[in-house]
């Protein structure tokens, strides 16, 4: 090490530095998480190659076997695969937080004069941007393999916003899981059993009417189906109706319940 003197400490506490800057702090954390995303090969594959493979696989492998009355399967499929991808993607919010916790980064953040909400808001915003990228990428691939949405452009954009909003609300659910888990692997293991039934026992890939009666009751009303149905209405050019309203209620409700719990949990951990 060099032996140069080190600048003297600031002996007066600067009130401006001590005050929270919720927006700037959240954007700083978002910047850090986006850098992490770009440099983590596993997360990159998760955000790029995997969604493309899913579109191609469902389009060409299962697409031939699944018949949906009245609509080409690819048009039926795309809303489902959007939602499926972002739902599984929301897992990374929890896994990332659990890793930060495990490595002591959360402890460092909590010792800094930053806004208490910033770690969670910054991370969920970074994940929202990742999802935006993923949905755009999948749309392009979908259009290449024959997806022809018949809804108006504003309706389609609204549908995409519903997908992103739902993903954002789930980020808060998994923030709670991540802050309660010991490390990333535990967070992932704890999340999968919640996600799998939600995604597969839904209208994402097949009509709910093809399921046994006892499963239909769950599959019809659970949030993944509601959001998929709403996006389907919007992209297929059906009038936006109760599905859309229900989807918005789910998104708002999940955020309203889970965000405060996650922030409270963040204050306690480490």
């Amino acid at each position: 090490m060099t032996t140069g003197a080190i600048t003297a400490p600031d002996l007066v506490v600067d009130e401006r530095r001590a005050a929270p800057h919720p927006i700037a702090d959240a954007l700083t954390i978002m910047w850090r998480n986006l850098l992490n995303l770009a440099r983590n090969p596993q997360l990159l594959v998760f955000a790029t190659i995997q969604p493309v493979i899913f579109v191609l696989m469902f389009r060409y492998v299962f697409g031939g076997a699944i018949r949906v009355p009245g609509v080409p399967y690819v048009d039926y499929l795309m809303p489902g695969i959007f939602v499926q991808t972002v739902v599984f993607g929301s897992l990374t919010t929890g896994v990332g937080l659990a890793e930060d916790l495990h490595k002591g980064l959360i402890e460092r953040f909590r010792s800094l004069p930053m806004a208490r909400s910033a770690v969670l808001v910054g991370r969920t915003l970074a994940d929202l941007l990742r999802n935006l990228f993923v949905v755009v990428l999948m749309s392009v691939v979908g259009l290449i393999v024959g997806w022809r949405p018949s809804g108006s452009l504003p309706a389609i954009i609204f549908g995409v916003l519903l997908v992103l909003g739902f993903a954002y609300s789930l980020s808060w659910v998994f923030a709670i899981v991540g802050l309660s888990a010991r490390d990333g692997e535990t967070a992932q293991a704890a999340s999968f059993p919640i996600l799998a039934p939600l995604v597969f026992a839904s209208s994402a890939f097949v009509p709910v009417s093809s399921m046994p009666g006892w499963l239909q009751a769950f599959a019809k009303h659970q949030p993944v189906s509601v959001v998929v149905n709403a996006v389907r209405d919007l992209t297929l050019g059906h009038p936006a109706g109760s599905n859309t309203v229900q989807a918005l209620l789910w998104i708002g409700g999940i955020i309203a319940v889970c965000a405060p719990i996650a922030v409270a949990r963040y204050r306690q951990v480490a």
Partner: protein
Amino acid sequence: MPPAILVENLEKRFGDVQALCGVSFEVPAQSVLGLLGPNGAGKTTTVRILTTLLRPDGGRAEVLGHDVTRDDRLVRASIGLAGQYAAVDENLTAHENLRLVGRLTHVEEPEIKRRSDELLDRFDLLHAQNRLVRTYSGGMRRRLDVAAALVHRPPVLFLDEPTTGLDPQGRTDLWAVIEDLVDSGTTVLLTTQYLEEADRLARNIVVIDHGTVIAEGTSAQLKARLGSTVIEVGFSDDESAKSAAELLSRVGAVTRDGRCLRVSVSDGAKSMLETVRALDGANLAPATMALREPTLDDVFLALTGHTAEEQPEADEKREREEEAS
């Protein structure tokens, strides 16, 4: 000047384990306090309360006059913390890690740049500043971790076992930086299990065990408390040694081993003078003479009944509780 850190009757309980049972101490501004104790003694719990990460169940703690529970924001703006793990982001470069902390402590952009360059230079990381931290060695990460705690020039620095896991060179290097920081006006609270480290860096030492302060003072005072500074006197012949043994029995308890005498005394310097006068008066010229102080290891053993590295089972349980909380 008011103390930089004030801890009064601090209590913390985790389930049925009382981690802190009324800990009190003060750290004068611009000094180093060594918080010494075995694993699970309550060192980390104390640091976490002082850095606002944990709320105390009882008692009071202040940093620069700011209460850690009421004025926690002001406390966080005044402190730097480097914990037991290197809490740095592996997927960022050293430079980006420092910028991250600089932004989150609301330091202006040009100052962050200037300060990062200075710290990376001081901690010998300039050559690796644009490499991702995941390619760093353990020692480099630890250095970056301490550097990250300093971006906003905090007047009070908490170092929780900063040299655990460092090689001897890394340890002496870090000691030099800590000494520099104190010279330039930083107050440091350092927890350690290494008696040598506390001895070298800390003006005052607080020894805690089972959540209680069991001794406090300068390293020299702690050793003096042990009451047996040893004066070693060697002679070139048995005759002189025998006469001297008789003569020095009024200074302290003498044991003779051939031509070497060991005199156990309670007040080292004064007894040394007495020894010299007595020997001089009797015309006895010693070949060697030394005042040997007991080491902090001796002190710790005498105070707690176990050495610093040894860990009784109850402490292990306490430590697990601390980790789980």
